[in-house]
């Protein structure tokens, strides 16, 4: 099969299975007896093996196969799961992940055989169940004996499966199966020469055989068979726990199949590759008697040659396939989109008919416009939802990471996660993994105290790290919290002065919060010693810049001795927002609806002065006033006595009142970048194009605080 078109799906699914395995094995570590978990692991390992096999990634297949064997034994109760088993399984998953990453980069799995892991897996297998399968093994062999003698010489000539060349991993799979008491059969299938749809017949045979067992190898390859690149016969090697007869019968039952010959495959003989050429020779001599066979034999040889060449070229040209980023979309979301598009068409059509009929009334026209508007709004929302994926895919790998950190740092800790189903734009989800990982590592390494210290301080011995995600208005908030030592503002201050980041006078004036925020500056690490895990002085500033690149923000809250909380706030969408249009002087500005709390009408008498700054007192809170016309250097049209229109905006827990001249209404706006020329102007976060083609600027209320 030409598998390149499936590469994306393979990668997606492989990652999913790996993730699933990771989670399940973590569960298994907690409850080694849980049958559901074991079954789930077995299933995931099995599908992974199948996928790897289909795609022709032999090493990956071998490794998963061995892993699957272990689980199979665990499932049968022959092996109990021990801590060492779990460790090896995780190593195994890491190795598989490496394969997957290699495949993603180069479409090739790489050359790492991971023999030590395979060995370790086999040791687990042999450790407990070395005796049992041996007994089973003998039985089928005995059964096979008499059958073999029955075979006539003529049939032997037809047993083309003898010429199938096995590579190491396939041999391994076969001997493995044999050792587990499975039967290995070779089959050669002859299709009637009058048959037109050879490939389809072959496919049916494949299907029929697969009901009984697993097809390990086929000759010609499955791809060539699919493309009808074969004469009228093909050969299979099948692993099954069933006797041979029903398999042969099933294969024969496919119409237009002339004959199916099969026998138990003696692996030792099959493995003897020297014999392979001999078989070919034999065929050559046997051919003299029946010319038909020549015709069959020759193309077969050329076919194998071709195949060899093919695989060679495939290897040499294995450049870097660009694997596109994909989003898996719930079919329901697509249905919604479809519905909306049809509505859009209807709305367009009625507009067309409106304009063509004479005497169109303005009201019905407006109605149509309103209809159109609601459709486009919904359309936008739906498209947005299609781009949204739960952050689950990112955060799911963290429990595993914490487990590894726990061993590495020798601290006991537990990760609690909530809100994994919170959805974010795919582009954001892809980027958010690293920053979160930094924060978690940070919490584990620097945040949590060692177990002894925790005990001394009267805290529970096991440290807790929390990862909470939730939606807050138009933002998604992700909090990383630990119950460790918190950030020592004094230590940060000293370090900052020592490094010359701030002067001593500056330090005097700064609040603890401001000092803690210094941590987010480039190359600022307070870790006394650099550890393997974190503390290389890159990290928090990376977190900050990464989050800011996604137009989000990072906030730190910390209490010495009680722990710290890192709050990441991200916008739901990046491209289109709901905004309030306001005018100041004769200029128009947009304020994101997400940051607006309320809109108030304030009389000049309500304005009080605190520390020479204008504030208003609103429902128990004192809110500073910001006169936008001053901030933006505009001449305001309003006179001093007029009531003020104040837009109350919030940033976190802070509120501020923006004084504007006029409210123009709510509008959906598309955010456009202003380019680097005006990046220096922090108040403006971007621009948008209004209905009349004019440019309006978007105010970033956050920068006004």
């Amino acid at each position, binding site marked *: 099969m030409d598998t390149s078109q499936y590469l994306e799906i393979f990668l997606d699914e492989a990652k999913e299975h790996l993730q699933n395995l990771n989670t399940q094995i973590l569960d298994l570590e907690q409850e080694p007896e849980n049958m559901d978990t074991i079954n789930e692991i077995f299933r995931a390992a099995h599908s992974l093996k199948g996928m790897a096999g289909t795609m022709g990634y032999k090493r990956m297949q071998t490794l998963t196969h061995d892993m699957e064997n272990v689980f199979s034994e665990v499932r049968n109760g022959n092996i109990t799961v021990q801590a060492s088993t779990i460790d090896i399984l995780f190593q195994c998953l890491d190795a598989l992940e490496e394969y997957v990453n290699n495949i993603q980069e180069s479409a090739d799995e790489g050359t790492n055989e991971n023999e030590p892991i395979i060995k370790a897996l086999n040791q687990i297998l042999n450790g407990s169940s070395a005796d049992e399968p041996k007994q089973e093994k003998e039985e089928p062999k005995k059964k096979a004996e008499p059958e073999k003698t029955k075979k006539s010489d003529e049939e032997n000539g037809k047993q083309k499966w003898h010429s199938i060349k096995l590579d190491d991993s396939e041999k391994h799979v076969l001997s493995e199966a044999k050792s587990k008491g499975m039967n290995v059969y070779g089959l050669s299938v002859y299709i009637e020469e009058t048959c037109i749809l050879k490939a389809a017949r072959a496919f049916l045979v494949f299907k029929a055989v697969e009901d009984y067992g697993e097809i390990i190898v086929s000759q010609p390859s499955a791809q060539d068979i699919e493309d009808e690149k074969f004469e009228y016969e093909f050969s299979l090697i099948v692993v099954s726990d069933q006797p041979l007869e029903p398999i042969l019968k099933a294969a024969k039952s496919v119409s237009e199949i002339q004959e199916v010959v099969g026998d138990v495959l003696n692996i030792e003989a099959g493995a003897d590759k020297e014999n392979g050429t001999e078989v070919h020779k034999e065929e050559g001599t046997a051919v003299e008697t029946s010319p038909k066979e020549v015709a069959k034999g020759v193309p077969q040889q050329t076919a194998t040659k071709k195949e060899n060449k093919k695989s060679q070229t495939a290897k040499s040209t294995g450049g870097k396939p660009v694997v596109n980023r994909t989003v898996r979309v719930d079919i329901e979301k697509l249905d919604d989109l479809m519905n909306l598009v049809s509505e859009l068409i209807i709305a367009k059509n009625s507009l067309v008919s409106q304009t063509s009929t004479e005497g169109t009334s303005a009201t019905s026209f407006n109605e149509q416009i309103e209809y159109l508007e609601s459709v486009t709004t919904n359309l936008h929302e739906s498209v947005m939802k299609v781009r949204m994926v739960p952050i689950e895919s990112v955060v799911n790998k963290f429990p595993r990471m914490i487990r590894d950190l726990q061993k590495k740092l020798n601290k006991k800790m537990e990760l609690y996660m909530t809100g994994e189903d919170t959805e974010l734009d795919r582009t954001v989800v892809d980027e958010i993994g690293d920053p979160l990982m930094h924060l978690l590592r940070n919490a584990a390494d620097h945040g949590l105290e060692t177990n002894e210290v925790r005990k001394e301080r009267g805290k529970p011995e096991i440290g807790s790290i929390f990862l909470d995600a939730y939606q807050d208005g138009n933002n998604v908030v992700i909090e990383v919290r630990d119950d460790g030592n918190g950030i020592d503002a004094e230590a940060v201050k000293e370090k900052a002065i020592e490094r010359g980041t701030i002067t001593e006078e500056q330090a005097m004036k700064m609040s603890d919060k401001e000092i803690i925020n210094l941590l987010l500056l480039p190359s600022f690490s307070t870790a006394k010693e650099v550890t393997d895990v974190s503390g290389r002085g890159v990290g928090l500033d990376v977190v900050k810049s990464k989050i800011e690149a996604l137009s989000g923000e990072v906030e730190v809250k910390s209490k010495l001795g009680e722990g710290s909380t890192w709050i990441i706030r991200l916008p739901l969408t990046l491209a289109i927002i709901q905004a309030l249009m306001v005018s100041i002087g004769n*200029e128009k500005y947009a304020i994101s609806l997400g940051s607006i709390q309320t809109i108030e009408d304030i009389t000049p008498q309500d304005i009080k002065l605190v520390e020479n700054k204008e504030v208003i007192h609103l429902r128990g809170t004192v809110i500073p006033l910001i006169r936008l016309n001053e901030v*933006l250097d505009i001449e305001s049209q309003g006179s001093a006595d007029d009531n003020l229109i104040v837009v109350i905006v919030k940033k976190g827990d802070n509120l501020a009142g923006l004084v504007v001249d006029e409210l123009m209404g709510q509008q959906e706006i598309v955010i456009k970048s*202003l*380019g*680097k*020329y*005006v990046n220096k102007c922090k108040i403006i976060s971007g621009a948008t*194009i209004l209905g009349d083609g004019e*440019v*309006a600027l978007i105010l970033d209320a956050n920068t006004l605080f």
Partner: protein
Amino acid sequence: MDEMKVVDKSLDSDRIEYDTTQFIVIKLGNEQYGIDIQYIDNILRMQNITRVPKVAPYLKGAINLRGEVIPVMSIRQKMGLPADEITKATRIIILKLEQHGMIGIMVDEVKEVVTLNNGEIEKVSYDNKEEKTTFISGIGKEDGNLISLLDLNAVVAEKENA
């Protein structure tokens, strides 16, 4: 610039084979300037420019060009000339520069396209201490007229304490 290329060509073809550059000639006040045509994306009539607050005064604001928001600067103010007088002839030239992206510059008038070969371009001497010369990469001579060729990267570059 690259005269090595034409070494083995006959004298006749020299004129054509010489590396030539096309310039758009614009006017700022009474002076003529040339802009290398390969950096020009578009020439627009004057339109409403949305002011962007808190930026250098020579940055006039932003305009909408086919759905993209593009900053516009006054080349006059950047070069220290008197402020623009907007007339019917005023144009916005949209430049596309690799390091700076798209940016519009306001000019008094767009006159014509001239083709200059390298022999007709004279490098500017730098002993002149006047600030204006830093914006000019060379002088082109065409039919007795002198055209100052703008060094676009210098024109567009952000100026400290402007």
